């Protein structure tokens, strides 16, 4: 009996921490399915896992190698995120995507030293777009500053071609993430002649009366939000409460999921968000996901998040990582690629519209042509408007390109400061 118990215990432990077989391609999923941000972490993690499951089930993996996606719970906690990284890096992890700017900042020096790829689409350190300084970090297709610039472009068009003399308020999460767009917006305010009002909201953001009373009093023409978690839902509800015109309220991509708008009911109709990928289930890949993953009972979650904005983002991140791995296999002529080879794959990624169509994702995102210096991608995104009646995000614009001149200047400035602080010599010369 004792022996049986010991054997069972040993088997259980082995199953929990089993290292992938040497030939497997390992892409850890540092996810959060618990804690205050679980509602956002779950659909993203489900989309991420399901896409890799699809590749394994339909194609036999990537280049004949199965992909293993060990999941590690971070609860959106920076310390736990670092623990997850330390616990998984020894298993030949090819790329990390922690879905947290806080964790990203902690991991940048670690992945640089350990030589692992850190892929942070639409989050993390914005200036990591400069591959000359950040060799192991990639954040294409767009970053926080691109987001701010694109939102301003969209609002300019909405205002009839000029924001001059208009008031724009930024309601932001009072954290490194929330403060990211301030510099960009200040520059754009100078350039375009609008007045910028800054309204920080402390974590977690359940109480925002002061900020919204200020908005009601100052009547800004537009409100931009950089929020996350409960802050988004409360802000949208408060905007409804003060009868702020929803179509003039625009959130960055982390303030634009179904979770954010649904609690406010019909009042949220017209709320606008930006996204660097499309959403919904009108893509051929969903038929495959249904056949090979969900109907086969191999879905990552309950299956109730499929096609949502954050599920689509998880699919997007997994698709980019898998394409970078595929590129690495092609460049190095081996299917069992190493982290360093995958970095090359990221750096030489050439994702065309034709390839997206082949993947069952036509028009889902913008093409990417990465280079040694360009880890930031095209910097374009689309606007989506919430349709409360249909419970869906409707496209409200075509792809909009950020102000490349301004963003490149800011990226160069910030990355140069980082390089100087850390004695990093520029590469790609």
């Amino acid at each position, binding site marked *: 009996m004792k022996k049986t118990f010991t054997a069972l215990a040993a088997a259980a432990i082995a199953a929990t921490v089993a290292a992938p077989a040497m030939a497997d391609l390992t892409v850890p999923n540092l996810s959060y399915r618990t804690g205050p941000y679980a509602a956002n972490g779950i659909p993203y993690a489900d989309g991420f896992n399901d896409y890799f499951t699809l590749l394994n089930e339909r194609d036999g993996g990537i280049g004949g190698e199965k992909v293993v996606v060990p999941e590690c719970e971070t609860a959106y906690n920076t310390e736990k995120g670092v623990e997850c990284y330390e616990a998984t890096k020894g298993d030949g992890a090819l790329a990390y995507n922690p879905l947290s700017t806080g964790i990203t900042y902690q991991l940048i020096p670690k992945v640089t030293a350990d030589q692992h790829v850190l892929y942070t689409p639409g989050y993390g350190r914005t200036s990591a777009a400069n591959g000359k300084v950040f060799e192991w970090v990639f954040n294409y297709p767009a970053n926080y500053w691109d987001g701010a610039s694109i939102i301003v472009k969209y609002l300019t068009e909405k205002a009839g071609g000029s924001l001059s003399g208009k008031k724009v308020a930024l309601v932001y999460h009072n954290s490194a993430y929330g403060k990211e767009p301030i510099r960009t917006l200040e520059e754009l305010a100078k350039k375009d002649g609008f007045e910028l009002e800054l309204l920080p909201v402390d974590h977690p953001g359940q109480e925002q009366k002061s900020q919204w009373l200020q908005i009601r009093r100052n009547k800004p023409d537009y409100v931009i939000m950089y929020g996350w978690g*409960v802050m988004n839902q409360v802000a949208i509800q408060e905007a409804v409460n003060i009868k702020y015109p929803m179509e003039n309220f625009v959130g960055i991509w982390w303030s634009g999921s179904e979770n954010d708008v649904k609690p406010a009911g019909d009042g949220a109709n017209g709320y606008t968000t930006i996204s660097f990928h499309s959403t919904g289930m009108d893509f051929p890949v969903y038929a495959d996901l249904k056949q090979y993953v969900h109907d086969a009972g191999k879905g990552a979650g309950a299956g109730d998040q499929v096609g949502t904005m954050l599920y689509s983002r998880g699919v997007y991140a997994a698709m980019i990582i898998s394409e970078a791995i595929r590129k690495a296999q092609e460049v190095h002529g081996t299917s069992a690629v190493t982290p360093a080879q995958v970095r090359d794959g990221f750096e030489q990624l050439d994702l065309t519209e034709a390839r997206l169509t082949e993947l069952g994702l036509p028009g889902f995102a913008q093409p990417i042509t990465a280079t040694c210096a360009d880890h930031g991608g095209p910097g374009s995104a689309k606007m989506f408007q919430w349709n409360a009646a249909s419970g869906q995000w409707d496209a409200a614009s075509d792809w909009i390109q950020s102000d490349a001149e301004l963003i490149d200047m800011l990226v160069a400035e910030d990355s140069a400061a980082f390089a100087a602080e850390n004695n990093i010599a520029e590469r790609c010369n």
Partner: protein
Amino acid sequence: MPDQLLFALEVTLNGLMAGVMYALVALGFVLIYKASGIFNYAQGVLALFAALTLVGIQQGQVPFAHLINAVTGMHVTEFGWKIPAILAILLTAGVMVGLAIIIEKLVLKHLVNQAPIILFMATIGMAYFLEGFGDVMWGADIKTLDVGLPQGINETLESVTDKALGYGFFIDNLDIVATLVAIALVTALTLFSQYSKQGRALRAVADDHQAALSVGISLRFIWILVWSIAGFVALVAGIMWGSKSGVQFSLSLIALKALPVLMLGGFTSIPGAIVGGLIIGVGEKLFEFFAGPLIGGATENWFAYVLALVFLVFRPQGLFGEKIIERV
């Protein structure tokens, strides 16, 4: 009246309303501390659990659906019925009583006569357990709570103040309801504690466990009673806060808003929780209004604690707390 003064008045009114919302959370802490000397770390999670259960019951959600589906391969999510809000609230209150009985039987009973820090640690454990249990039972998605409470600007107040002062004040209907509910709750709790037999027993236990036991008061019954009442107060707080932001796991963090209220009002006073809530609510909103723009804003979280600390310098037991006299 000058514009700035009108805005300040509007901010003050909204601060009072926000204070009531904080006080609703603080009340649960006070009840348990008063009766057992335990600082209940799990009070915020109790509010979350109550709100999750309420939505689950109201929407006819199958509890532990994910677990059932994973184990059996079935695909059950809902029973297919909706339950009226009042009935769902009553059923949830019943669940909270059941939870109080379980907590007493599994945790508190075994910790009688232990040092307060042990009991406090036990509530930390309970908080983590209940959060995970709530997740497994009802899922982690954000749920919309609709028990028919009005939300949005109160048009009557806006038009009255507009006519009288030339500026329409914003007061949220939900905050007005919360205020009325808080008044009713505090009145009921005060009456219960002062005039009912159980209330007097509760106060006796709070004053001296040993003495209360020696006159035949059942400590276990009192603990179940007080945790049930705290569970009900948590349900009320969960409804108010959940209506505002949807029911989600960050709801447990509302406890952070209650701490300065408790420090200021005192851990043992029901009226103290209300007065403390009002002072914190008004204080943080006015500080944000006047000083926020000068120092970069987002002052409310830390200013509430600073305000509470300032009061503590002059009254360490809080405004309404009982003065602690230790004999050497």
